[in-house]
Each structure stands twice: as C-alpha cells, then as structure tokens.
C-alpha cells in the first residue's frame, strides 16, 4: 500500500491539473489554486529536512574531524547566524538579515556568476578548434554571427549583419524549435507515465 496510495493520489491530482487547463469553471480553477497553495506549504516543511541534512552531514564531519572538516564550520556558523538574525530581527527590507543578504551573499553570488565569462572563453576556445567539417562549419557560422553583432562587422562588410540575422533566424531557429518540440513531447509523455504509474522509481522503496 505504501506505493499504491501515492500512485492513486498522483493519478487523480495529475489528471485534475490537466483538466483544470481546459475547464475555466470557478469551482475547478479555485480548487486548482488551492492545490498549488498546498504544494507551497508542503515545500516549506521540506526546508526543515534540508537544514537537518546540512546539520547532520557537516556536524558529523566536524565531530569526526573528517577530511576538509574546517570548511564545515563556517557553513554551519553561517546557517546558524542567518537563522538567528532572521528570527530575532525579522526578514523584511532594511533589516539586518536583508543587509547581510545584500552586502555579503549577493556579492559572493555575483562573483560566482562572473566566472561564467572566463569559462565561456575557455569553452569557446575548445569548441572552435577545427578538426572536422562540422566543427569547421560551426566555427565559420560563429565568426559570422559574432562579427555581425558588433559595429566592426559592419565596417568590414555591410552584409555581415544580414547574414548573421539569417543564420540566427533560419537554420539556428529551425534546429532550436526541433529540439524544443522533441523535448516538449518527451516532457508530456513523462507526465503521462508518472500519472499512469508507469514511471515509479521516484517514489523510492516499498
């Protein structure tokens, strides 16, 4: 029964959410909105599990002096600190919690994001090495598109932006839409498999 009950619940509520898309009746849409609110409440409880996971794994690491245990200490200290600041002083705009988020976390997050620029350069260097005909086509198309998007491209040849736009709007867009259609059909069939209980690995054990 540990598997059958979740499967039945998934089938009923999964089917309901499909039906809701086609039925604009207030009783149906209202119930659908209520279900989504339930989901938000259930997800909120999951944070307790998340915090418990962090504390258990990193706490054990510190107590056993496992490899790299010093890294666990600032992690737990940061978690405890932000939790305390949030509970004691509140979490709205202008609070201490908000200040730490904006002036400590946000710059660190921005630093991680900025790494992307360097990684794009290194990845592009590898991608544009011409070893095969396909790689050659890719490199030529990329050079045209890049030059077509900057003023110097127009200075070199005024038709470059036109060719660049054609590459983006015709072959690139066609390939992208083909992948998108395939992915969308895959997602729908996966949804069907979950609703019908054909895919059930995600439910875990009996």
């Amino acid at each position, binding site marked *: 029964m540990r598997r059958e009950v979740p499967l039945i619940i998934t*089938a*009923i509520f*999964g*089917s*309901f959410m499909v*039906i809701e*898309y*086609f*039925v*604009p*009746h*207030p009783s*149906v849409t209202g119930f659908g909105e209520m279900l989504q609110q339930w*989901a938000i409440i*259930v*997800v909120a409880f*999951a944070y307790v*599990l*998340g*915090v418990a*996971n*962090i504390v*258990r*794994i990193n706490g*054990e690491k510190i107590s056993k002096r496992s*490899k790299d245990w010093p890294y666990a200490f600032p992690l737990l200290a940061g978690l405890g600190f932000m939790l305390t600041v949030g509970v004691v002083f509140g979490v709205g705009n202008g609070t201490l919690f908000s200040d730490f988020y904006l002036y400590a*976390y946000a710059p*660190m*997050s921005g630093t*991680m*994001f900025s790494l992307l620029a360097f*990684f794009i350069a*290194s*990845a*592009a260097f*590898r*991608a544009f090495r011409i070893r095969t005909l396909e790689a050659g086509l890719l490199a030529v198309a990329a050079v045209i598109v890049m030059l077509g998007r900057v003023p110097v491209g127009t200075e070199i040849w005024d038709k470059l932006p036109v060719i660049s736009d054609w590459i983006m709007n015709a072959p690139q867009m066609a390939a*992208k839409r083909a*992948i*998108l*259609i*395939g*992915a969308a*059909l*895959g*997602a*729908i*069939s*996966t949804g*069907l498999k*979950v*609703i*019908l*209980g*054909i*895919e059930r*690995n*995600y439910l*875990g*054990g009996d």
Partner: protein
Amino acid sequence: MNRVECLLIIATFLLFASLAGTPAMARAESDASPEEILPDTTSAQAGAPADPASQAAVWFDPRRVNLLVIIGLFFFLVLLFIRKAVRGRSLYVRKITGLSAIEEAIGRATEMGKAVLYVPGIDDVNNIQTIYSMVILGTVAKLVARYETPLIVPVCKAFVVPLAEETVKQGYLDAGHPDAYNPDNIRYLSDEQFAFTAGVDGIMLREKPAANLFLGSFFAESLILAETGFSTGAIQIAGTANIHQLPFFVVACDYTLIGEEFFAATAYLSDEPKLVGTLKGSDWMKVFVMGALIVGAILETFGVTAFTRWLTVQ
C-alpha cells in the same frame, strides 16, 4: 484488464466527465465567441462580483479544443504503443551514445576507485525534468551499487532531498547492496543558485569524482559546473531539456543528451516494454507534428490560413 488500463479509463473518465454532458458546451461552441463565454478573470481577481449564472455555465474553454485534440491523439499513440510493447512486439530504439556511456563512466570511476557525482539540476520537483532526473538516478544508483562505487548527489532544493534519499536507497536495495548506501552522500547544499554552484564546484575540486552526471534542469550555472568538472579530468555526461544550456554542455561535456534523449533514458537503459512503448508513441507524435508543419507551410503558401489559425494556442 491491467492496472495501466484501469488508470487510463479513470483518467479519461475524469477528463471527459467534466467536458461532456454540459449543454453549455454546445451553446458555447455554437453561439458565442470565446471572449463572451469565458468569465472575466481580471475582475474576479480584483474582487469584483462575477456573474454566478454565466460562470456556472462554463465547463469548457473552446479556445483550447485544438490542444485537447492533440493531447488526446498523443495519449492515444502512447497507450497504443505501450499495448503493442506489452504484447511482445519488438520496438526498435536507436543507439543513444550518451546513455550507453553512463555505464562506461561508472565503470571508469570504479576502476579508478573514485566516486560518481550525480547533479539532478537546480529546479524543484514541480519541474518534470527533476522528477525524471530522480527516475534516472534510481537506475544510476543500481549500477553504482553493483560496482560498490560511492555515489555523491548534491541537491539544490530541500524538497528533492527525501526523494533523492529514497531513490538512491532503493537503487542500492534493488542491487542487493543495501549496506553500501551512505546517506551522507545525499547532500543538500543550498536553495540559492550560485551558492549551490560553489558547493558543487567545491565537491568536484576536493573529492575529484571520476564521473560527473549532470541530468536535470540547469540554468546559468551549467557551464560553470561543466567547465570545473572538465578541469578535474572527469568523464562528463549531461542531459537537459533547457535548450539554452545545451550548447554549454555540448562544448564542455563528453556526452550530451539533447532534449528528448534525456526523457528516453529509462526506456533505453531498462528496456522495459511499457517505457519503450511511450518512446515510440512520442516518435509517432513527432511524425504527426512534422506532417502538420509541412501541410501548414503548403497551405500558408497558398493563402489558406484556417489550419494554422486552428493550431494557434490561446
């Protein structure tokens, strides 16, 4: 009648019970325009009193009949091929190199005595890619357990933690090695995108897993993860349906599952008839979409717009 057919009948009944038998539906489709039929949701949201009589009459949005027909056709094709597969008909599935490479990557990690890193994306369970990533994780856990290789699963969303724990535990149990399951390897890092990215990068650089599997929904962190993994020399397999991230994975990973290939993983790896049936149903739906595109292009060329207008989703 098997369980799948019972569930199908219930689901179909639920679907059509709400659509059929409503006189208003016929009236809605014949007499009035969609704008007249549908309730004014903006006024309702703003707290304005809506007309209960007109709302009670609307049980079907006629503007979405096109989607209903297409989804109905898709469901029919999927169930038809499931039925064929279950009855023993052999269905061909082309070789997907990225999926075949998963076992190779795990084997390599085993030979090197290092861990396998599995990142199930950064989205929550309301994204179908995350759910499907859990399904693939179950298969990967079984393979890993068979070789007794450590499996590290960093998780970005708290709600995914119990799912990942249960899935991996079940995989080890199915492989007959429940004692090898280490709950400390299912690690919740952070809900924040780049805090999670930094955490996974740290795991890759400190613990140096031999195989990195990035399967799920990824966003701007995809290239940061894949390039860091590349710098550690790990064999990398990625799969996502987020098409904007695919070029990054293609460049930085050894194998990439592109869009639909990602959703074919369990059918391909397990060869389970019902799963292969859904795959064939999707393939035939693609044939239908291609046919519709060709017909639409021809009709539009000759100035006939009814077909494309009917297919437009509102």
